[in-house]
């Protein structure tokens, strides 16, 4: 009996503890080897990325094994709080790694990995991403660049599955995407400062053997949509309506919407509601009974849906430019709600349905992710917070959208004035702070330009 117990104890000791120790030693050994090699060879490379590495997180190195041998990936942040996205600024949450693959001749082959998500709110967990596997329902792009040649490739993922590029698309110019380092601003625009590289699916240079594949292509996740009712999909741990934009527009509103969707700025704003992991859906409807002088209204979100109602009768009294301004104004209201929903991780913005802990998480998420919103909506909350924020920080975006919609027909200053529509007088003697700060002469000039262009001017949508 005693002998049996002793034997069992020995077996347990040998099997449980030893494996973990060996594993840790291997990780430390491998990353240490790569680190020494990198310190000695860094000067041999001239890639842009090497000038912008904040600090390499060797202690968080991700090591995976497979048919290409052992792969070491070392995460890092960019220096000076820089971020990366594509030229179109439609990729988010940039994650960066240096990847080391053993090479008989030179020690290691060195690659630069950039992981970017399609959805602004999707959080990447580093441990779920490695050379051999994406253990995640990831929607986005991974750019792989070999630093010896700077040749690279773009790999797209949808729900964790690799999308294979078509043969015709492989080397098409339209398929090439360039990545830039720069800064995101609170109003959602990205200022590109440095080009990092341009990548196509299947390799940026057809003459060059494409960089290695990444992510294996097979997700080990079980299908997470199971368990949701019909018409719903699984996202962020919950079941969501499997529809993103409910377009129920007709008449003039529909015509303006379609024309706006042909312009990149507006369609990019709309696409934020269309992401597979967006927590907010957009419903565009017609309500010809809106109050006097109300052309459109954005309803507070209910059950993850933000509804924008447009009054076709009243839009009929506006020029196309005026109607487009109404659309841009309302979509920015919806965008604010979308950000708030993502912070609240809830289908509505009613704190009475949240526990005190959930409210604290909501406010903390606002603080961490949307400091501007936090400032207007929470820190300095007052009754006209949303129009105040829009008047101060989003007029430029509205002007950009309507200028693009109007094909630059008018001077930039006119679009900037027209963007004030709905952001000056708020009724009952109230105005936005930004409007109140204008001189009387400025207010008069802007009001004149609004009445000359909002109510008059080309009207091809009827």
């Amino acid at each position, binding site marked *: 009996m005693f002998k049996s117990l002793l034997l069992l104890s020995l077996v347990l000791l040998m099997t449980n503890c030893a494996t973990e120790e060996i594993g840790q030693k291997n990780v430390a050994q491998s990353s240490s080897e790569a680190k020494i090699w990198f310190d000695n060879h860094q000067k041999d490379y001239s890639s842009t990325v090497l000038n912008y590495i904040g600090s390499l997180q060797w202690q968080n190195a991700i090591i995976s094994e497979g048919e290409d041998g052992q792969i070491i990936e070392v995460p890092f942040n960019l220096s000076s709080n820089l971020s990366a996205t594509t030229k179109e600024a439609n990729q988010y949450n940039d994650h960066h790694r240096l990847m080391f693959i053993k090479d008989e001749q030179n020690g290691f082959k060195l690659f630069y990995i950039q992981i970017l998500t399609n959805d602004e709110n999707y959080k990447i967990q580093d441990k779920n991403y490695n050379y051999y596997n994406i253990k995640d329902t990831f929607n986005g792009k991974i750019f792989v660049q070999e630093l010896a040649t700077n040749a690279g490739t773009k790999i797209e993922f949808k729900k964790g599955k690799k999308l294979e590029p078509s043969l015709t698309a492989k080397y098409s110019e339209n398929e090439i995407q360039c990545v830039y380092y720069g800064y995101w601003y609170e109003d959602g625009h990205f200022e590109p400062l440095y080009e990092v590289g341009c990548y196509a699916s299947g390799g940026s240079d057809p003459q060059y053997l494409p960089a290695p594949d990444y992510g294996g292509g097979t997700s080990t996740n079980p299908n997470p949509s199971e368990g949701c009712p019909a018409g719903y999909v699984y996202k962020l741990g919950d079941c969501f309506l499997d529809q993103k934009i409910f377009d129920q527009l007709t008449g003039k509103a529909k015509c303006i919407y379609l024309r706006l969707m042909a312009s990149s700025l507006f369609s990019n704003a709309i696409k934020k509601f269309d992401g597979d992991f967006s927590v907010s859906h957009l419903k565009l409807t017609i309500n010809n009974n809106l109050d006097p002088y*109300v*052309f459109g209204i954005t309803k507070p979100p209910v059950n993850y849906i933000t509804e924008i109602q447009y009054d076709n009768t009243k839009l009929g009294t506006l020029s196309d430019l005026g109607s487009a301004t109404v659309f841009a104004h309302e979509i920015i209201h919806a965008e604010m709600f979308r950000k708030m929903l993502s912070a609240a991780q809830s289908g509505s913005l*009613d*704190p*009475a349905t*949240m526990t005190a802990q959930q*409210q604290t998480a909501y406010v903390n998420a606002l603080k961490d992710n949307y400091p501007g919103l936090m400032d207007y909506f929470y820190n300095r909350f007052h009754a006209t917070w949303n129009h105040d924020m829009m008047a101060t920080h989003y007029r430029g975006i509205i002007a950009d959208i309507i200028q693009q919609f109007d094909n630059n027909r008018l001077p930039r200053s006119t679009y900037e004035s027209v963007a004030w529509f*709905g952001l000056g007088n708020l*009724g009952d003697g109230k105005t936005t702070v930004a409007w109140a700060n204008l001189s009387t002469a400025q207010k008069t000039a802007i009001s004149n330009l609004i009445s000359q262009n909002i109510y008059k001017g080309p009207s091809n949508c009827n």
Partner: protein
Amino acid sequence: MKTNITILFFLLVNFLSGQTKESDYYSFYKGGNKSLKPIKYILFNSKENDAKVQREGKIYFKIKSERFVFDKKKHRADTCLVSFLNNIKLENIAKLRENEVLYYKTESKKTDAYKKSGFIPPFPVTSIHPYFKVYVVEKIKNDKLIKYEVDWEYSDF
């Protein structure tokens, strides 16, 4: 005996009409204490461009920049003598939102969460303003008025 029945009937009617319902209360957070909404009376005056529209069993009041809706399925409308105005305070509609924010800022500091950690709940962004119980008062004759129980709707555009 007859007098007693009359008194009993009077008390019953008074008791029933004074009953509060779920929507008369608000809470700052799920599971938090429920508080009775303060009552606010708003005067509807068609001579001052206030608008009243009836549609699908509801009456919509647009008073200055605010919008109220009376839904006969869930709200009450009472006819009163004009002298009722002597017993109530009419709100300045232009200040209604500011007063709501002031009320929220004051009352939210009375919650347990605030007392424990100084945390103020975020303001609700909902279809109906949550903190006040609103009545729209409309004069219908020289000596009568209708008091409509209403929802104060979100109307930022």
